[in-house]
């Protein structure tokens, strides 16, 4: 299928909160241009995986490679400048900054103001609701709008790889569908997406490949359609 070098790779990554190991040797590969999903129950270590990639949680063993380079020790604030950006779980927009200022923060490290202006227009096209609300404080947006703002903010950094942590969390079904459509659109524009989800059904429909996480370990990896057809997966994660 995709036969070139992985753009993002984890090799036997172990990380811990204090003495409790949250990741017990995770290995995964993400190839340029694809959507990879990581599914798993609550507490499986999905968010920790993304936070470890971004070096917010330090990996105590193993290696993280991005574009062929080891990025274990690279500061969290450097990664977005390299094109690796995360939309963290729970949105985490800046509530007392306006929508516009939130977007500006996404482009914080960028110095090409013309390009930034262009990108503001681009994300407004993707999320027309945000244009209407651009002078409103982020905290006054609805849940769905906040999720859109969080994604738009990350897009402002012109990411090569976008890490999305449970974008559908707590949203109404119609909005969930919309968010997944937008994820596909973003991917269509050439952004590689790592999609962490509890909504395994929609995530697997969206992705090309999937990893299944259980208590800090990868227990299964396969093409998304194969995982969708797998009776064990259907039973455990699709509620059948």
């Amino acid at each position, binding site marked *: 299928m995709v036969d070139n070098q992985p753009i993002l790779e984890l090799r036997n990554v172990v990380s811990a909160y204090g003495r409790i190991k949250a990741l017990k040797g995770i290995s995964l590969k993400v190839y340029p241009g694809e959507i990879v999903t990581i599914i798993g129950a609550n507490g499986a270590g999905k968010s920790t995986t993304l936070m470890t990639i971004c070096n917010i949680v330090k990996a105590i063993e193993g290696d993280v490679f991005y574009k062929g380079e080891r990025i274990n020790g690279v500061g969290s*604030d450097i990664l977005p400048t390299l094109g690796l950006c995360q939309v963290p779980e729970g949105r985490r927009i800046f509530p007392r*900054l306006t929508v516009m200022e939130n977007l500006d923060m996404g482009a*914080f490290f960028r110095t090409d103001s013309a390009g930034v202006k262009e990108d503001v227009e681009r994300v407004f096209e993707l999320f027309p609701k945000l244009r209407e609300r651009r002078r409103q404080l982020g905290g006054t947006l609805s849940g769905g709008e906040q999720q859109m703002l969080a994604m738009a903010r990350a897009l402002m950094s012109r990411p090569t790889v976008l890490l999305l942590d449970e974008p559908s969390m707590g949203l109404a079904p119609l909005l969930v569908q919309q968010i997944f459509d937008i994820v596909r659109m973003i991917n269509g524009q050439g952004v590689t997406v790592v999609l962490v989800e509890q909504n395994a059904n929609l995530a697997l429909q969206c992705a090309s490949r999937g990893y299944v996480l259980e208590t800090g370990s990868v227990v299964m990896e396969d093409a998304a359609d194969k995982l969708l057809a797998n009776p064990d997966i259907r039973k455990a994660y699709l509620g059948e």
Partner: protein
Amino acid sequence: MTIRGSKKLWTGCAVGLVWFLILLWPMLGIKPEGFEFAATFQVFGYVAVAAVFVLFFYQVKEAGYLDAAGKPIQSAAGLIQRAYAKTPTWVLLGATLAVAIVFPLVTGRYAHDVAISVLIYICLGLGLNVVVGLAGLLDLGYIAFYGVGAYTYALLSLNFGFSFWLCLPIAGLLAAIAGCIIGYPTLRMRGDYLAIVTLGFGEIVRLILNNWMALTNGPNGILGIPRPELFGFDFRSLASLYYVILAIAVVTVLSVYRLNYSRIGRAWEAIREDETAAELMGVNTFLLKLLAYAMGATFAGFAGAFFAARMRFVGPESFSFLESAMVLSMVVLGGMGSIPGVILGVLALVALPEVFREFELYRMLVFGGVMTLMMLVRPAGIWPAKRVGRRSEEME
């Protein structure tokens, strides 16, 4: 208002008054000679009558009997607000500055003294506002930097004969370095822990000033600090000193304003809102938090150097925790993150105790009551930060 609503109101008032009495008596009634009730009931009487009067007035207003009187007041307030919104900013700023410049020419010594106090606290408040209001780092030991600035000028001028104008930047620099030293170990802490550790650091600085006899002359303080001088002009009068601190305050306001609307200011706000998210957006939170401490401390250092020159004396008791708490109250009362808010907060908290001087013993009680009332009525401060979309407008 319904009968039931009114009953609830009066019950609430009665319960409140009983609580007040229970709190008041131990403060006023327990004396070394034994218990005493007269003073308590006297004060309680005043407060109770005042409460009943206010409540009665409130009910009359609610019932609409005052509409005839209220309407003109309301429309006048609206008029003023609209006029304010219409006047260009530079006119307002110019007028404020003009008033500030003319002020010492038309007032006496006492007014100069209070005004100097106000301006010193404006520098302190705006500096602390950078740390607390913008970067969201609760600093309870802020006054330590003020102390560093004051002792810097005191020691350099007395031991080496450095002039005030040379010492001013040195005081700012040393305070900034102290800010980094205090800031560095606390960078990984958040919220409550940060508050406790900064509180501790503030006390450590005070204890050093108090106990390092050889350097600071301990609790006796340092006397005979020279006044500022410029090209042979001796800043002898209070009025001339007023202009010195006015200049420092103007520089502080301008710097904080620039910082407020800069990229750095926005990054600080992002850190205040969500540190991890800010980091994920490419903000070097480590450096920026350190910078916030250093910048905030610098302004306190300037103010401290001036304070030493104005008092011609420094002692450790000027830099106690109470002072930190006072400056923090000014920032919170005025409105965190808002420059006019901080200035109003300072005016309120410096002026109020002066106004309430009549009350003598009960001054702090009245003061506390007014503060509590203010926070109930305007929880975001007198003049809350409101710059919705300000920077975004500029971008468009």
